[in-house]
């Protein structure tokens, strides 16, 4: 297979087409994957113990992938440093590769030029995956929402499980958000498709 050599101008052109296509496609937010939460889950008996074991395992070893763009990065790093130690929940293994991670922490402002990268990162992650939108910029574009190059909220690109308000949210708020996500994982069941 002959690898054709592409000039950098050609690469930039292809990338900007990708950005345009994604921009037109994502004008409306993706609905949150929470519909199965409220209707009472009719669990059949067989799965309860398996569910409990799997959910416990997935809950206690959530490995985040670093999708850090802006200021909230340093609050997440603050949360994983010595004082607010996120490693107590087994989350400090910062896998840089999306294949092994199962939690996408969207921290910081998302711009249209960055949107295709985040979309590809989310698609590369292995299946039982969750996303946290951390900070006002991630929820609705925050202080920059009316700027020409900012996506008003990550949920235009990736479905979001937990929203954490704040600009930037304090590490305690982040830990509370992670606790909410862990409680959500407990309710999952392998019998019901996500």
């Amino acid at each position, binding site marked *: 297979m002959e690898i054709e050599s592409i000039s950098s101008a050609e690469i930039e052109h292809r990338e900007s087409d990708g950005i345009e296509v994604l921009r037109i496609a994502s004008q409306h937010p993706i609905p949150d994957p929470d519909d199965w939460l409220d209707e009472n889950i009719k669990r059949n008996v067989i799965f309860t113990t398996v569910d409990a074991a799997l959910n416990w395992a*997935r809950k206690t070893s959530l490995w985040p992938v670093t999708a850090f763009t802006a200021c909230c990065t340093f609050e997440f790093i603050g949360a994983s440093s010595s004082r607010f130690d996120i490693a*107590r929940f087994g989350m400090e293994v910062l896998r840089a*590769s999306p294949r092994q991670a199962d939690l996408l922490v969207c921290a910081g402002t998302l711009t249209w030029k960055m949107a295709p990268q985040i979309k590809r990162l989310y698609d*590369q992650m292995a299946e039982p995956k969750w996303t946290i939108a951390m900070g006002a910029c991630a929820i609705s574009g925050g202080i920059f929402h009316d700027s020409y190059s900012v996506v008003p909220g990550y949920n235009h690109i990736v479905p979001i499980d937990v929203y954490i308000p704040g600009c930037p949210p304090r590490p305690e708020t982040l830990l509370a958000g992670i606790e909410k996500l862990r409680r959500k994982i407990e309710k999952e069941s392998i019998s019901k498709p996500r």
Partner: protein
Amino acid sequence: MNWSLSPNWPGNFWLRLLIIAVVIIAYVMASVIMFIWMERRVIARFQSRLGPNRAGPFGLLQAFADTIKILTKEDIIPTLADKLLFWIAPAIAFVPTLMIMAVIPLMNGLQLADLNVGVLYIAAISAVSAIGVFLSGMAGNNKYSLVGAIREIAQLISFEIPMVLALSGLVIACGSMSLSSIIDAQNIPFILVQPLGFAIFMVAILAEINRTPFDLVEADSELTCGFNTEYSGMKFALLYLTEYSEAVVGSALITTFFLGGWRGPWLPGILWFIIKMFASFMFILWLRGTLPRLRIDQSMKLAWKGLLPLALINLFIIGLKTVFFPDLSRWISVPAYIVISVIIIMLWAIFMRKERQSFGA
């Protein structure tokens, strides 16, 4: 009171083979789980933070949670990946580490096969697991893992020779290559008898199992995740297991060759083996928490210009001792050799620093 296992214990040869094989595999798996937990807690302690403590008492169940989660994750094979290599590579990487454990005596008689070519066998098999890591890097069709794979081969070749030379120093000292006889010859642990050999072997083992300061293969600040970037699910579990089982085998080799294996007063042999193995792993963790990473050309320069001459000097001195004054009393030869090796290491360090300064200016 010595706990020992008579050579023909259950009578039937095959039954004995089966039982000991099961014991060794259970031992490796248990120590891998303990190593995963220990690494995360000890590194957290180095960094003045707590480490996992929510999963079970003191976070003991953290390793189980990790393995169950990784095993039940989706198993992705990238479209452009070389399917066969991608599927077989983790197995090639993991199986040799188990094969090395077959030769290591956990207790007086608890050894799968007392090969009389034990040292040669270990040197050969340890190269095969590096091939598995290399294949997993090449198969994933990811540029970062490609660079990681090439670095793995470069490091393996340059550190294989010093390791074998350091071990041959042991073989000369105790006359035979079988591990049980090496342990029998260690009335004084070889770490005291051959300190230079221990230093070279330690550095070479660190490079073999890709631990800091030689963790260039999975350099998470340069190559995202090195060779296992494209792996997920079951295959990543095997590679994650390989990384830790290599650490188990590395510390087991250090204990059998230089710390006297299962020999020790009062406690039964297996307990001494476990204590020494965890002690040497603690030393490896200590390095991981504090030392920065060497560049690939610096680590190869260290191997060829540093360890190789030192290993030859070590071999020469041991040969001199065994030929000319074989019956020199221990109270003279041990301190003498310690002083000599300290001087040699200081001279070499000054030479390497001067060369760096002239290069770096």
